[in-house]
């Protein structure tokens, strides 16, 4: 099957029900999406499918065919960081960082839909688990992107 990952068409031969996460990680060497729970609980494996966040550990690879898959590696355009990535640096959000690729992608999708999200919007959208406890800074960083008014 053919899969578009980070603006590149990649070819792979796997079972249709293989989770997208393991197709990306073990077949295509795209390591940004992380394994955390395997049952769509934690969100460390989040990728964007046509701009929508999806928990790739529980999403069959065959269903992603024909869609644009974007992982954390594909978010920056060439060397230009996405405003959300820049805000994550400006506000020193990550600690261990393991869940942060997923957190950033969910934030990108949120800001695309709601460029000025309220705290309630952030609460509703940002459901991924972070064990280090970066939640306060995630909220601050999202508001900072919104305030700058950069099209996310």
């Amino acid at each position, binding site marked *: 099957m053919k899969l578009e990952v980070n603006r590149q068409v990649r070819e792979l031969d*796997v*079972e249709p029900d*293989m*989770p997208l*996460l*393991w197709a990306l*990680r*073990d*077949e295509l*060497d795209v*390591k*940004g999406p*992380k*394994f*955390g*729970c*395997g*049952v769509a*609980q*934690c969100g*460390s494996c989040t990728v964007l499918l046509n701009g929508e966040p999806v928990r790739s550990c529980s999403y069959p690879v065959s269903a992603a065919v024909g869609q644009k898959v974007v*992982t*954390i*590696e594909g*978010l*920056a355009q060439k060397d230009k*960081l996405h405003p959300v*990535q820049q805000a*994550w*640096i400006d506000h*020193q*959000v*990550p*600690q*261990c*960082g*393991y*869940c*942060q*690729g997923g957190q*950033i992608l969910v934030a990108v999708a949120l800001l695309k839909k709601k460029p000025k999200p309220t705290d309630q919007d*952030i*609460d*509703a959208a*940002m*459901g*991924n*688990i*972070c*064990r*280090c*406890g*970066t*939640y*306060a*800074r*995630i*909220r601050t960083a999202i508001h900072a992107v919104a305030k700058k008014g950069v099209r996310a």
Partner: protein
Amino acid sequence: MTHLDPSSTGLARRDFLKVSATAAAGMSLGFFWPTHGNAAETPKLNAWIEIQTDDTVIIRYARTEMGQGSRTSAPMLVADELEADWKKVRIEYATAHENLRTKRAYGDMATVGSRTIRNSQEYLRKAGATAREMLIAAAAAQWGVPASECTAALGKVSHAASKRSLSYGKLAAAAAKLEAPKEVKLKDPKDWKIIGKSLPRVDIPDIVTGKIRYGIDAQVPGMMYAAVAASPVFNGKVKSLDASKVENRRGIVKVLNMGEFVAVVANNWWRAKEALREVAIDWETGDNGQLTSAVIMNSFKAGMGQAELAVARNDGNTVQALGTAAKVLEAEYFTPYLAHATMEPMVCTAWLQGDKLDVWTSTQNPENTLAVAAATAGVAQDKVTVHPMQLGGGLGRKSPQDFTRQGVMIAKAMAGTPVKMVWSREEDMQHDLYRPASLVRFKGGMDNDGKVQALHIRVSAPSILATLLRLPLPKGVDGQAVASFNDHPYDIPNSLVDYAQRNTNVPVGFWRTVGHSQNPYMRECFIDEMALAAGKDPLAFRLANLGQKSPRDVAILQAVAKAADWGGPLPKGVFRGIAETEGYGSYTACVCEVSVSDKGDVKIHRVVIGIDPGYAVNPDNIEAQLQGSVVHGLSAIFWGEMTIKDGRIEQSNFHDYRMMRLNEMPVVKAVIAPTGGFWGGVGEPAQAPLAPALCNAIAAASGKRIRSLPLKNHGMSLKA
């Protein structure tokens, strides 16, 4: 197997400095890293510092990074004394095999016990100062002026009188040939330029772009993947297995019976994991399958009445003083087993080629990884390379090396083929080294003025040190089991702390904040019970009973109380709770403001949490650690418990071992109040005062005294 463990690892600092001095002398004779690409041209001033001709300063970092931020803050200590230009500093890992080869030039590499800064600050600063003096001496020699007339700043040595200056890159080659000074003067803290600044963490740019590599991301050509299952009943062994259903399945390479566990090796981890579910395994569990949480509780209760107890503290005559006290209070507290559940589960990639072994893993203790890997594979330690990787959280779980042992066992069985072992979340939760459960009984006696005259604390709990590290316990006491009891700061004339060691089949280990994650909760809640019984304000009661004995405890308590406006007005229905403790060399205190509904919804309006770590190396990072401590603590306080039935852990994933999420995050006000003169840890201590401050606030709001955790068992939930 060596046990380089969190409490007793290796060389004492004094011994290390001798080794370091020898190593530094060796380096000045032209001692270069063979692994470094352009090493031959890069002058090395000592084990920690290399300076390139383009003025790039390479500072080695010998611990691991798991979110605590010391990959940035430890090199800040070196750079400050070096008078380096931070913009030109590049931080690279020292590795366990280099440490072995240099007879531990880097000292202890374990990242445990919140001690990276406090245990290495002296030799790191000395390394920077030594190199600075050598660079100054090189410049002085070149200019033919006294070194005392030269100064170093921002990566340059200058001679003001002749208006000359040379950058470090131009001086490094000559400086590296000089003998290292034996004595160097460290800067006065008021002259620090880098220490104490909130500097951005060096690993964050690679995190936000997905470039950073964790243990789970190891990629080796020809690599295979392993999924594993150990006996769900602790201490069980494989009796028999039938893999006929999966052996011919796509991608399955091998099904291994390793005795203690089963591994399926495949060319994709998902294939391995799916196949493992269909391998029929018969486990030999003996009578280990009888164990339940109730059986363990009964054992703890029996410990309370045990004839012989280890004595951890015995001031005055507590029993007698309790007999004559005007008012005596008694209470029993319980804390449960907890799993670490780091976001990244246990992983180990290992590749055995002949007598050479490469290991990629997320480890808090690379030296122990190396030792365990060598012993497991049966190869010499100097044939092992442990590749440094970022950790997807550590929380104390990744210090013991059970997972490295498994990974290397698989690599040995698959000799020649690199294999990446990854634990499923279920495996991770069911084969953790759990924060011990514990039962603690308090008996406190006061006079009529609310002055505590006697305090008896009896602890019945497993010992991490005796079971995990197999260490002899001094006088039978596990220091973690009695932490914050045996060294309580209160000015109480009669204190007795005794301990019944009650080990079970449930393996225990170091969980972020260890004994301080549970004992301060119990101690500071009991102190509140006494304050209430004495009719005193909880802060005033603490201050009166701390007296003059513990000025740092008093200082942080007062700083946090002030920041929280303790005693000031609150909205209707909102109540405060307070607590303080010492831990990991730092002093911490917390005030929580809560309201509790009739249904048990606990709304946390604000958490004010403060720390006095002596010196605050990177304040922004300390704030992050305080925020993180609140999140880590609240997950445990509200939901955290691992229960045992039929000899196995009942919880298996995040649906039944619940973690706090962003919508539940309360407002946190961080108070960083360094008083100077000592170096304390930062990663763990702040979690300690959270649970008691919260539970004291809940008691104030609802009248309900919480004597066991988690709160869900009291019908309470965290209101978003």
